[in-house]
Structures are given as structure tokens and as C-alpha cells.
């Protein structure tokens, strides 16, 4: 019996699963078992082939898979004694963003993360993972609690975006996100972030400033959903496939530019195909990251956290100083450039301007 929903590009997987299901209904014989075993081998190799060459848009679909393990699954498997903390003490309790404390390998930690919900009823209750301002304020309140008592914070990111609705704007969702980003930078306790599904722009970043940002292999992290980008830049949301490629939102792309620190591998076929293995792999990476970060003294940890974000977008790579420029065509990486003897034009980083008086 296969209950996993298959994605449109998983056609070959779906038909093999169907064949296996059909054989499972027949009386058990050696011949049948051999046939099932051979189908399973084909299933594994088909999955491996398919997932070795996923396109960015296919990764978006995997990241959004309804059976993908999320915060609740991680809490159930990796943490014990979870106690949920509700409410922002200001307005309400947001259901799309969950906070609480639990034990992780015997160590008390604070958990923060988005929840999208499983069935339709739950999805509505969780607002499909679109958090409102009170969610971000609750998260900061809980993180302050962890800071006060010296407990590490573990964040799981999985949201399409912050909720784009009237009440979000009225209650200052932008301000809530901005304050979180600023204050998380100085939170005096280890913070490990795991992007486990959709890293949906500001809605994700509002809880995603940490000492380590880990990302599951088929998760995505983007400035805008591909559909939104396609609608604005291509005029058609059906250009989402092109937009997904252009946005460079995959884990390998983000690792290259230093936005994430590490990719957590997923089982062949994605986390939804084998949640137990996926969760175990998250556990391994999490333990390692937490141990590494906790070993560093507070001042060094905070400096490293700051530097990590400060250095996103580097001179010579993502931008240049044309007043002090290296010859075009040079493709030296940044580290080599800073030491290299290269012809330089006179630096022109500053200039004086005569301001005209505003009114004559």
C-alpha cells in the first residue's frame, strides 16, 4: 500500500508503485516475491536517476510536498517532552508559527518553526504556514526566554511567505520581521537554523538569523516564489519553471554564495519518500552543528554570526568597485584578488559634490 502522493514529474515512480501494489494483492508465491523484489530494485534506480538530476522547479515541488516531514514530525522523532508556548503577549497566538521547549539528547532547547498542516482542516488552522505579525513576535518572545536561561535555539523554516493580508499590514508584519532579524543577530545563545522546506523570503528570514544555517538537500530558499517572480517579470505565472531556474533558489546554489553553511542530504526520492532516513540525517547535522557552535565562547560566536551575514555579497564576486577595478576578463576568486598585484586605477570611492541650495 502506497499512501505517498507522487508529483507530476514522478510518473515513472508512480507506475512502478502501482505495479507493486497490484502484485501485493496477489497470493504470496516465490514467483510473485521475486517479481516484487525486482520491481523494487527498478523503483530504487528510477528514483535515484530522477533525483540525481532534478530541475530547480522540480525541487520547488519536492520542497512543497504535502508529505514532507516538517516541524511536528521533527519534534515527534528527535525531541522529547515538548511543551508548546503560545502567544505573543500582545495580540494573539499565531498557529502558523510554533514555539516551545523540549529536550534534545537530554539537553533543553527552544524550538521555533513554521507549521503548514497536514489535512485540509489543519491547513486552514495553520493558515498554510503563512505567519502573521504575532507569530514573529511570539518567536522573539520565546527566543528571549531561551537567551535569558542560556538555552540553545533550533529553528525549522518552512513557509511560503509571511501572510499577505490586511490584518498583517495593520499590525505591522514588516516591523515584526525587521525587529526579529535585527535582534536575532545579537541573541546571546547558540542559534541553529534548518531550512527544511520552503524558505519563503522575509517570512522565512524573520526567524532565520543564526550561527549556522543548514538546508535540506531539496529545500528551497528564495527572495520571491517562482510564480510571483514569473508574474512580475515574465507577465505569466506559467513561466514559473524559468523563474525557478533563474532565481538560483536550490541548496547547492545557495551554498556556493555562502547563504547557507551546509547541505543536509536527503534520502533518494526526497524526504517524503523516506521520512525516517530524512529525519535521521537532519539529526546528525543538527547534533554536529550544535556541538560546534556551543564550543565557541559567546563573543566569538556573536562575531562569527555577524560576519557571516555581513559577508554575503562579496567584493569581486557579487559586486565590484569600478573606481578601483581589476581588469575585465579576470576571473580570479576574491581571496586571490586581494593579494594579487593588479593594475589599479586611482580609487574613486569618494567624491565631493556641491549641493545646490534647495530653494533659490
Amino acid at each position, binding site marked *: 500500500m502506497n499512501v505517498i502522493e507522487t508529483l507530476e514529474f514522478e510518473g515513472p515512480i508512480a507506475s512502478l508503485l502501482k505495479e507493486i501494489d497490484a502484485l501485493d494483492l496477489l497470493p504470496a508465491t516465490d514467483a510473485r516475491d521475486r517479481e516484487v523484489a525486482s520491481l523494487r530494485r527498478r523503483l530504487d534506480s528510477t528514483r535515484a536517476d530522477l533525483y540525481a538530476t532534478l530541475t530547480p522547479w522540480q525541487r520547488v515541488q519536492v520542497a512543497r510536498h504535502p508529505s514532507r516531514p516538517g516541524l511536528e514530525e521533527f519534534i515527534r522523532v528527535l525531541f522529547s517532552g515538548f511543551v508548546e508556548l503560545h502567544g505573543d503577549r500582545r495580540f494573539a497566538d499565531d498557529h502558523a508559527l510554533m514555539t516551545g521547549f523540549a529536550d534534545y539528547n537530554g539537553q533543553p532547547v527552544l524550538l521555533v518553526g513554521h507549521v503548514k498542516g497536514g489535512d485540509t482542516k489543519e491547513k486552514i488552522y495553520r493558515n498554510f504556514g503563512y505567519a502573521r505579525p504575532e507569530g514573529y513576535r511570539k518567536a522573539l518572545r520565546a527566543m528571549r526566554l531561551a537567551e535569558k536561561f542560556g538555552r540553545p535555539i533550533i529553528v525549522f523554516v518552512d513557509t*511560503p511567505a*509571511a501572510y*499577505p*493580508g*490586511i490584518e498583517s*499590514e495593520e*499590525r*505591522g*508584519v*514588516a*516591523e515584526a*520581521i*525587521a525587529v526579529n*532579524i535585527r535582534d536575532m*543577530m*545579537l541573541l546571546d545563545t547558540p542559534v541553529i537554523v534548518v531550512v527544511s522546506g520552503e*524558505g519563503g*523570503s*522575509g517570512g522565512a*528570514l524573520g526567524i532565520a*538569523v543564526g550561527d549556522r544555517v543548514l538546508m535540506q538537500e531539496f529545500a528551497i*530558499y*528564495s*527572495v*520571491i*516564489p517562482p510564480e*510571483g517572480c*514569473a*508574474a512580475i*517579470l515574465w*507577465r505569466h*505565472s506559467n*513561466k*514559473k519553471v524559468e*523563474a525557478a531556474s*533563474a532565481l*538560483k*533558489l536550490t541548496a547547492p546554489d*545557495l551554498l556556493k554564495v555562502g547563504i547557507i553553511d551546509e547541505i543536509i542530504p536527503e534520502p533518494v526520492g526526497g524526504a517524503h519518500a523516506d521520512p525516517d532516513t530524512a529525519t535521521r540525517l537532519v539529526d546528525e547535522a543538527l547534533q554536529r552543528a550544535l556541538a560546534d557552535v556551543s564550543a565557541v565562547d559567546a563573543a566569538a560566536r556573536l562575531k562569527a554570526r*555577524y560576519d557571516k*551575514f*555581513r559577508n*554575503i*555579497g562579496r567584493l569581486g*564576486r*557579487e*559586486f*565590484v*568597485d*569600478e573606481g578601483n*577595478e581589476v581588469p575585465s576578463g579576470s576571473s580570479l576568486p576574491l581571496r586571490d584578488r586581494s593579494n594579487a598585484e593588479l593594475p589599479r586605477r586611482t580609487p*574613486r*570611492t*569618494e*567624491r*565631493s*559634490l556641491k*549641493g*545646490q541650495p534647495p*530653494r533659490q
Partner: protein
Amino acid sequence: MAWFKKTRKPIAATKEKSSRVPEGLWLKCPGCAQVIYNKDLSTNLNVCPKCVHHFRIGAAERLRTLFDAEWTEHDVDLASTDPLEFTDTKPYKARLQASRAATGLKDAIIVGTGGIEGICTVVAAMEYDFIGGSMGVVVGEKITRAIERALDLRCPLVIVCCSGGARMMEGALSLMQMAKICGALAHFDKARLPYISVLTDPTTGGVTASFAMLGDLNIAEPMALIGFAGPRVIEQTIRQKLPEGFQRSEFLLEKGMIDFIIDRREMKAAIARALRFMGARATLPAPAPASPAVEPELSHLAIESSRQ
């Protein structure tokens, strides 16, 4: 994701509904529909003398309205490398080239240090005509350097926001500029130095959800569009039309999100006054006494427009 399905016009096509002053001797004000003499408008800081409609102004013009006289511009030549090699209907490189040609700038921001009523201040002003004032790596870097510079000089910081948000063509790198800037602001805040965020039309998206909302004071020009999600995205989510005045300065004031709304012609004086409250002192030569261009009764206009 139903709210994405609607077909929209590309950025370039919808951009010019804005209230930028058109060429020519005369123009019709979108606020009061009266005909204004162009020169009257420019001597009035591009505020309609009849109805106080604030026309959008560029970054250089903005700095002229704030600084006493000369200023030093920083990081003039920082430019994007098109790190994602992004192409939609047009290559991003071509969009950059077109914006550079149109504005004479290398990206969507100018940063300068100069005097505001004699107070040495670092001011960053965003340029809407450069890809919608959007924030990519260069804007993020220049704002971060502006904060670091103000921290070094121990002088106040003013950022004038005018932006559609994070720049899509630099992907998650643009998103991360929010964290980079907010991190620098965290240290600036700890150093107890004043930061005033000036919100002008429009201030949306990742700019609002980062430095725009983190001023010691967040102040706005009248009737500016200020929000996180764009009005069209919200309309598509809730499937109804938004109420009149939603996400305008006056709405934000009412909801408790900004400190006050101020007429552009009084902006400089208001900023200087706030900076003095926050402990800043004039250290630069006092500016030449300005002609009293702001007539006394105009003080009431800012208050009136905020009541609408």
C-alpha cells in the same frame, strides 16, 4: 497559490503611473488636477503648491533638500556583477545598463556625508528610477557601509527609503541584504547613535521589513505607499478590493507604525530637531540662513493631510 495566477504587466510597463515630474513647462497635478507651472514646482521641492501632492524625487535631489551645502559621496563606483546571470524577458545586465544610462548612477542608492543644520550626518537616499529602487547586493553593501561609517564617525544616520523591495534579479542574495543591514543596525542601536528612517512613496517589501521600520524614528511623507506585501498581492489573496487609503502614510500613522508625517518642505528642520533631541550637536559651520521658503501656514498642512 491562486494569487499568482492573474496575468500582470511587467514592472517596466506599470512603473510610469508614478508621480514623477514630467518634462515640459506646465503639468497637471495628479492630486488636485490643477495646472502647475513647472518652475513653481521645482522651487517648491516638487510639492504641489496648491494641494501639497508630493511628487516623487530622485536620490540626488533628495540629498539637496536635506544637506546644508556640500556633501561627500561614498562608494560611488560599486556596481553589480549580475551574480546569478539572470535573464527574464531581458537580461538583467541590459536592465542595469539602461538604468545606469537613465540615472547616471551605478545602482539604486546614493550615500553621502554632510551637514543637516550643521549636524554632521550620513544620509543614504534610494533612487526609484533605478530598477524601482530595488535592493540588491550593491544597495545592501552601500547601506551597510553607511551604517559602519556613521558608527566610526559617531554621527547620526538618515536613510530615505524609496523602493519596491528586494531585487528579484539577485535572488536570495538580495534577501540576505536585509540581514546584513539589520545586523549593522543592531550594533548602531547598541552604540546609542540616532537613526531616522524616512519613508517615501513607495516603500514596500524587503526594504520595509528591514531597515525602513527600524529607525529610532520612522517618519513619512504624506500619502506615501508603505507596506510589506504589495496591494495587488493582498487583493489577490483576500479576493476583494482594498479600502481607500490602505497602506498610505496616514493609515500607518493611525495603526501606530510611524512617529509622524511631515511635509517635504519641513523635513529637514524636523530631522534636525529630532537629531538634537537624540543628542546630536552641530559641529559643522552653520549653514547660510535659508530664505524663508516655508510659509508659516504650511505647518498646518502637514497636520491636516495627516488627518485625512
